[in-house]
């Protein structure tokens, strides 16, 4: 490992024992990754503040006890508690206490209390080409693909160690050559009308993750998706595969043209996408067999966390109606704060929407105990809910989610997607 004098100093304890411990973990991980040097980073986003068990809390408190502080601007991903809405999660008292201690340890190290999986919606937006160290798979996919900043998928522990040392292993997606597309996804055979469907992008993401895994793909022929649509695409792709970077030709910053996306090389593989493959991907996102009109137990949206704009859309589509079944809307405190003057959070709460901030329904027990059937428009919720919550899942559009919550039973739009 080629370390510069600053890095060697950290390892030898020049900035304290906490930074030395972080540097040991970082250097050992860099070795595993095959990196021979480190790269300075400009910011970090930490996923390790989510409680998975007492061990993570003990490690974070070890760092705090040894005097560790973050060396770069650092945001925090969700924790296991909704700090703004006490009692939202059903964690046992012992776990609640440890989850809180873990969140407190990260604050003690100097990180910003953003508590969101969408830090890019909370003002943390590194510039294209900057090296950063981000954790949480959707945030990583967004950071690389939509912002054009450079990060690998930093797992728990490595993320905080990078923030403390201001360094990351110089490998993977930090290197320009690894950011070039290898696979071309030709979506021109899919009717353009499909991309106006709000669940088109999580379906595309679920398909992309399963099809390309960790390889970098460039997608052509899906029009000009919005930032929220790209967010949904990346989140689904990162949970079904391990996609850390994708390009959309003509849309994302490193793919202004096909030749730029591929570095003037021909694609190694061209995959034609059609409606049949998308229909299969869509079917894979539902685990429950229910037909329209059958009962459901809950609805959840907001993985990744809803943007302010998505909360406004929810407010508009729900109108003055009351939810018969709970509709969980997961979002960041920044989005709630931004809408405070519009009174949207309060209006939603009065109509039976349960606004969840700082956390989300698949990482901590929020849904009523006992399981049941959950309707969601999130590819990521659909992926993780069966394992993590005990709820079966029906994947549906936002409109269908809202109508199902209002009626208390599954409501499906008429359309090509339900006839196949």
């Amino acid at each position, binding site marked *: 490992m080629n370390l510069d004098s600053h890095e060697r100093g950290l390892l030898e304890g020049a900035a304290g024992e906490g930074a030395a*411990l972080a540097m*040991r*973990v970082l250097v*050992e*991980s860099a070795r*595993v*990754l*095959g990196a021979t040097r480190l790269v300075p980073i400009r910011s970090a986003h930490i*996923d*390790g503040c*989510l409680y*998975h*068990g*007492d*061990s*993570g809390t*003990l*490690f974070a408190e*070890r760092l705090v006890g040894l005097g560790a502080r973050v060396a770069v601007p650092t945001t925090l991903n969700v924790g296991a508690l909704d700090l703004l809405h006490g009692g939202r999660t059903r964690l046992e008292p012992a776990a609640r206490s440890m989850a809180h201690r873990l969140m407190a340890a990260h604050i003690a190290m100097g990180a910003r209390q953003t508590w969101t999986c969408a830090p890019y919606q909370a003002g943390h937006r590194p510039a294209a080409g900057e090296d950063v160290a981000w*954790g*949480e*798979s959707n945030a*990583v996919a967004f950071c690389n693909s939509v912002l054009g900043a450079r990060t*690998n*998928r*930093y*797992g*728990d*522990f*490595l*993320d905080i160690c990078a923030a403390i040392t201001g360094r990351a*292993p110089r490998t993977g997606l930090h290197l320009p050559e690894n950011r070039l597309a290898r696979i071309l996804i030709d979506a021109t055979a899919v009717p353009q009308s499909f991309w106006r469907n709000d669940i088109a992008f999580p379906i595309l993401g679920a398909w992309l993750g399963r099809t390309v*895994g960790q390889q970098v793909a460039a997608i052509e022929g899906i029009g000009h998706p919005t930032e929220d649509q790209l967010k949904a695409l990346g989140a689904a792709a990162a*949970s*079904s*595969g*391990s996609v850390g970077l994708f390009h959309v030709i003509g849309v994302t910053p490193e793919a202004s043209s096909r030749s730029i996306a591929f570095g003037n090389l021909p694609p190694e593989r061209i995959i034609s996408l059609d409606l049949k493959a998308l229909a299969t991907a869509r079917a894979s996102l539902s*685990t429950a067999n229910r037909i329209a009109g059958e009962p459901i137990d809950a609805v959840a949206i907001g993985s990744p966390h809803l943007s302010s704009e998505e909360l406004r859309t929810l407010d508009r589509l729900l109108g003055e109606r009351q939810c018969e079944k709970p509709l969980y809307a997961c979002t960041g405190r920044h989005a709630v704060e931004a809408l405070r003057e519009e009174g949207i959070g309060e209006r939603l709460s009065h109509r039976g929407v349960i606004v969840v901030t700082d956390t989300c329904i698949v990482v901590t027990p929020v849904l009523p105990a006992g399981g049941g059937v959950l309707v969601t428009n999130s590819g990521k919720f659909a*992926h*993780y809910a*069966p*394992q*993590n919550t005990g709820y079966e899942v029906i994947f549906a559009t936002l409109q269908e989610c809202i109508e199902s919550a209002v009626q208390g039973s599954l409501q499906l739009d008429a359309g090509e997607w339900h006839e196949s």
Partner: protein
Amino acid sequence: MRVSGMRVERIVAGSPDRDIAGAPALVLKEPISFWGGVSPVSGRLTDPRSRYHQRSLAGVALFIRELRGSSSGSSVLLELIYRRLAPAAIILDAPDAILALGAIVGREMGWHSPPILRLSAAEQDLIDDGVSIAITRDGWLRIGDIAQSQE
């Protein structure tokens, strides 16, 4: 008679660094995500859609062809280590920093941590689920039952 074995490459050393004997093989033929796929409380596989549903990872030689999913896998492995529910060894087709991190931090915390090793998917195909596995510190993997039958 000398029994042939397979060379495994060491990604992260175990802590303490020692020989492993008699660990039952759990050979996963499908991709796995530690976060969401493994309970940090019970050490069991949790995906009801998987054919390995409810299999325990504690003390097994865990062969993984493909890892996927969340970067929180390190935390799940660390928790298994802390609760003494971790596999005896984890054998991957390719180095993986996410699982390695769990083992590296386990070692820093002074807990018993499994070695993370590398064996190609093609060689993993030669290992049947459930057989007894021995792995030496210097990187030899042997199938225990064969060793016994040849003695």
